[in-house]
């Protein structure tokens, strides 16, 4: 098992903070965004691209690359920011193309438009199925790449997720790691009030998955869980239930349902920039 040094953890934490700074600039450029759920997803996506996954930004279609699918497509801003930071495309596109007409960066990512996007997203509940197709394709092609998929908690209410969860287990997709970005809020209210998804860990266990539970903003825990899932020696797929805070890093957004999808005024920008907490 790879050990992740304290220095590397510190580096990843700083990177996560930097991504949040970039996100605030992106939302300023767009004047809006799915801000809360983008901020909650940062640590996991940073850890994947800067520590866990085997990718080559110079060769984004490299057949042996690890795949990442963002099923909760409304967090695409975070994916874009990380891809740009990693070198998949120039960073200035983040500020000129995001949610702009004729732009390459759709609010919900579109795979044909920009390198590094493995699957289009936006219609919730569909990502796990696509990830399973990639995982089965790896096995069929005799390749050792891994597939990662991040889902949202609201998605857990959607039937297709459980069709896919059943199939991942049936096909022993141990080369697949799912991450549930469990920020407890969806569009209209708390997940537990809208349609309770609990007990979500037991649900996945009942579907035949390995489960891990972490604080999704604690980088050491994030890295450790992703590594553990990667070293999976069982026949089961693994899901990391990542407990997070919607709007993480910007105090007036944290845990506030209003910031799921919101306009972002100059005033909001100043306030977010001034109050952004970091490592």
């Amino acid at each position, binding site marked *: 098992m790879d050990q992740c040094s304290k220095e590397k953890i510190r580096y990843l934490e700083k990177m996560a903070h930097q991504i949040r700074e970039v996100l605030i600039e992106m939302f300023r450029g767009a004047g809006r965004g799915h801000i809360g759920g983008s901020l909650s997803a940062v640590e996991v996506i940073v850890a994947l691209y800067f520590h866990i996954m085997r990718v080559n930004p110079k060769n984004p279609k490299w057949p042996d690359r690890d795949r990442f699918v963002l099923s909760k497509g409304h967090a695409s801003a975070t994916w874009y920011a990380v891809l740009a930071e990693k070198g998949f495309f120039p960073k200035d596109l983040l500020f000129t193309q995001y949610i702009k007409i004729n732009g390459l960066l759709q609010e919900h990512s579109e795979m044909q438009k920009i390198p590094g996007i493995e699957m289009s997203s936006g219609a919730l509940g569909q990502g796990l199925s696509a990830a399973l197709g990639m995982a089965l394709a*790896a096995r069929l092609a005799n390749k050792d790449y891994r597939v990662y998929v991040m889902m949202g908690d609201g998605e857990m209410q959607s039937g297709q997720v459980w*069709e896919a969860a059943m199939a991942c287990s049936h096909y022993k997709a141990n080369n697949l790691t799912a991450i549930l970005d469990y920020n407890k809020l969806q569009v209209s209210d708390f997940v537990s009030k809208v349609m309770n998804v609990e007990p979500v860990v037991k649900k996945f266990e009942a579907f035949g998955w390995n489960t891990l539970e972490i604080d999704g903003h604690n980088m050491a825990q994030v890295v450790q869980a992703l590594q553990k899932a990667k070293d999976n020696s069982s026949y089961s797929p693994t899901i990391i239930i990542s407990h997070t805070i919607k709007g993480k890093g910007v105090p007036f957004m944290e845990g506030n349902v209003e910031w799921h999808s919101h306009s972002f005024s100059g005033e909001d920008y100043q306030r977010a920039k001034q109050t952004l907490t970091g490592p």
Partner: protein
Amino acid sequence: MENLKMIDLRNAYGEALVKLGKEDKRVVVLDADVAHPTCTHFFAQHFPERFFEMGVAEQNMMGVAAGFATCGFIPFPTTFGVFAYKRAHDQVSISIAYTNLNVKVVGSYSGLTSPNTGATHQAIDDIASMRAMPNMRVVVPADAVEIEKAVFAITQEPGPIYLRIARCKAPVIFNDNYEFKLGEAVVLREGSDVALVGTGIMTPRCLKAAELLQEDKIEATVLHVPTVKPIDISKLTEVAEKTRAVVTAENHSIIGGLGSAVSEVLGETRPCPMQRVGIRDTFGESAENMEDLFEKYGLTSEEIVKAAKSVLKRKGSG
């Protein structure tokens, strides 16, 4: 027409997949617990490692197919048409069409060709639904020969395609030299009075209707349209120009299918009197056999003849 050989179309699809699988290792087949009825079990027997049973979970099946396609495989997710375009419409639209992925969605049991099962299993508006989807192409073969040719041809064509298969035997109207080309319609018979435009298993019925019309000294062109999208605008315009009277025939609702597609084209290129033969905006039902249903819902050669005569009455100065 009477002495043409009859071949089961589901079998033809199943056998075509096996031939294709031998030649092209990128082909994978997924099915949703209907591998026997759709005949994908032939493929499963030959290539078990490339066949994926997905259970009664069509939405997941379409997504998994999309995932395979991103990795260079050519998936054929196959189920009854109804479940492909209704149950999994969002997944076909977003995971397959929007992404423009190389997935061949196959809908069997099309139109009223599944007589016993009733309305829940009869795909009567799948062409309408698939045709409206950006990036999606729609192929409706007429016989066993064309099914095999189409299966191979669509595999060579990148991007999403919906292939519509009927659950019945159909007369073999093409010989082995026939070449299926995506987007091309085929003139099967020339006549200057009226054009009978058919797709799928209604094309042989158009040919039969043409024979019946000839007995009344009416000469009909028969145009077979195996690709409903992209539709062959130039051939359609050409036959409309020549005959100035058009009848369409499809094993599908008259709303949104071939009849609509032809109307859309001719409305813009060469308007002329038209009539659509098809299911008249109603669900189907159970019956002992298919022909009874086809008669009740007006999908017969006689119905095409009636429509042709009615169109001819309106053919005047137009």
